[in-house]
């Protein structure tokens, strides 16, 4: 009996592998759903840690300094040291705070930030699930994080957090409108096929780009580009990052809504901020930059090009490994640096092995989608850091003006323009030509 149960379980697990082209959620296979959730969670945590280190290093190099150099070679272990520090720190709760709400707020923010990854498509089958309302779900759940921020600000029972929360909620609610309009114009583009039905499903959107043979950012040039620009601005505002970081404007409100938070709870906010950044970047990548599609999927077709592009992930990792080895050689030749040098070399070896693994044809075919998706998201992450290094901060009224008086009309215009371009033959045949004929008949 036990053996047959075992067999059933194994069969259940294997049954998913036979369903080609379905996400585990769509196939309804609980085991693989859990595996995917674990993988996404793990990948996201690694991404946040890497992002933490990269932001410090890149920002530091933009600002003519070195950034973390002490913990591990080139500060590679700094995020881990920070995490340990934050976990060990005292968790302070203000005496007059509303303890339950204070306790709940970071959880809600983190939950909202992580839940959106349920529908993010890292590949045609590499998503936890594919929902009919995918993009709506993403926007909806990410808009829930504003609740956590408001709760945090209110529960702290202090003026600066309250003002930060009010600013933040007003900002997020108003930029959601512009964001939504930009998203709608991209969704409208998905409906430009033979049967005329679009889709809200994240996977469907990427497949529509594949079918139409163009990334939506280049579609109806420059309409797609403008919509993308609106979204790119709104998403920076949505995640409260510079130059829209008024909610946590250090010089004005000390730290905004999380002024009173410390230790682990604070680190939850930090985690949520970074995963929200990754989440909105994923939306942008999915909607406009072709999601998991490699560059030029329609132009450079054929097995040769497929083969060539499948080498790129491996080459990238080998390049990282080579960078590590180069810096290993450049390390100071002092006994005190011996451990760091060995560590850096070890890191390089690990990266190199990953790179070599990616050359195995089976692996490279499976990993490609994820690689291209992550590479595009990484580009957005660099953009975030770049913004932070370059721009001063907007003032609140200017921010609102930008949202309501610039982005919103632009979004409406793009939406109308996209609709008009999509229906241009119908408009020409059914409105302009008859009207012209009518005028002609009058003459």
């Amino acid at each position, binding site marked *: 009996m036990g053996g047959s149960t075992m067999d059933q379980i194994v069969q259940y697990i294997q049954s998913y592998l036979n369903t080609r082209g379905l996400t585990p959620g769509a196939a*309804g296979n609980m085991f693989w759903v859990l595996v995917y959730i674990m993988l996404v969670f793990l990948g996201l945590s690694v991404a946040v840690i890497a992002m933490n280190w990269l932001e410090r290093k890149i920002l530091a190099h933009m600002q003519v300094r070195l950034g973390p150099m002490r913990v591990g070679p080139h500060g590679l272990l700094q995020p881990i040291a920070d995490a340990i520090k934050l976990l060990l720190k005292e968790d302070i709760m203000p005496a007059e705070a*509303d303890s339950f*709400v204070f306790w709940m707020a970071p959880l809600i923010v983190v939950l909202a930030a992580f839940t959106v990854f349920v529908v993010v498509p890292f590949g045609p089958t590499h998503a936890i699930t594919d929902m*009919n*309302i995918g993009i709506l779900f993403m926007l909806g759940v990410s808009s829930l994080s504003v609740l956590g921020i*408001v*709760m945090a600000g209110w529960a702290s029972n202090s003026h600066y957090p309250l003002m930060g929360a*009010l600013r933040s909620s007003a900002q997020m609610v108003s930029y959601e409108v512009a964001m939504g309009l930009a998203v709608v114009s991209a969704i409208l583009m998905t409906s430009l096929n033979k049967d005329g039905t679009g889709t809200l499903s994240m996977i469907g959107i990427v497949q529509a780009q594949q079918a139409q043979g163009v990334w939506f950012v280049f579609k109806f040039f420059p309409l797609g580009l403008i919509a993308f620009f609106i979204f790119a601005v709104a998403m920076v505002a949505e995640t409260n990052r510079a130059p829209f970081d008024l909610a946590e404007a250090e010089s004005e409100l000390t730290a905004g809504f999380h002024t009173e938070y410390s230790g682990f709870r604070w680190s939850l906010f930090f985690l949520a901020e970074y995963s929200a950044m990754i989440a909105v970047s994923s939306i942008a990548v999915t909607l406009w930059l072709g999601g998991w599609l490699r560059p030029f999927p329609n132009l450079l077709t054929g097995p040769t090009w497929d083969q060539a592009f499948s080498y790129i992930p491996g080459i990238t990792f080998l390049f990282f490994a080579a960078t590590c080895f180069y810096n290993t050689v450049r390390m100071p030749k002092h006994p005190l640096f011996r451990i760091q040098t060995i560590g850096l070399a070890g890191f390089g070896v690990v990266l190199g092995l990953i790179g070599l693994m990616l050359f195995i044809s089976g692996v490279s075919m499976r990993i490609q989608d994820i690689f291209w998706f992550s590479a595009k998201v990484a580009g957005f992450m660099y953009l975030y850091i770049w913004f932070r290094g370059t721009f001063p901060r907007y003032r609140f009224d200017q921010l609102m003006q930008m949202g309501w008086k610039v982005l919103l009309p632009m979004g409406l215009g793009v939406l109308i323009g996209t609709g008009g371009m999509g229906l241009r033959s119908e408009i020409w045949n059914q409105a302009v030509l008859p009207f012209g004929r009518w005028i002609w008949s009058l003459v």
Partner: protein
Amino acid sequence: MTPVATPFFFYLFAGMMLIGGILVITRKNPVHSALALIVTLLAQASIYLMLYAPFVAGVQIILYAGGIMVLFLFVIMLVSIERSMKERQFNSQRVVGIIAATALGGLFIAVYSKGKDIFPDHAVRMTAAEAPNVQSVATLLFGPYMFAFEIASLLLLVAIIGAVVMAKKRI
């Protein structure tokens, strides 16, 4: 993509909704009430999903939980709630109100127990709702209900203007 363990999730979300609803009307602090209402709304969104109405569920989350409730919280923070929290929470007609509500509840029970046979006895029918929900809703919304849709947009415009006129100090 059929729902799994329907009874379990139904009772779970129904319980969340009812507990949330009770908390909404009993809490002293409006912020707590608002949070309880959010729990209710999210649980209701899940129930919409079980009823094969994903688009309504999405709208519920994005509009209700993400929009209207933020507005509520915003206003609660603008008005000072300190004083109202110290005051009596229920008004003088509370007894009459509860009696009236109980009578209404009795009416509901009577109607539902008399007429339970007209509802399908077992699990609800599988229907065309399995088809892509968003597209079908859109076809209805921009087809037969076009006029209602436009009226709704007009209503929203009126509401925007009304809210601005009401809340602005000097126009």
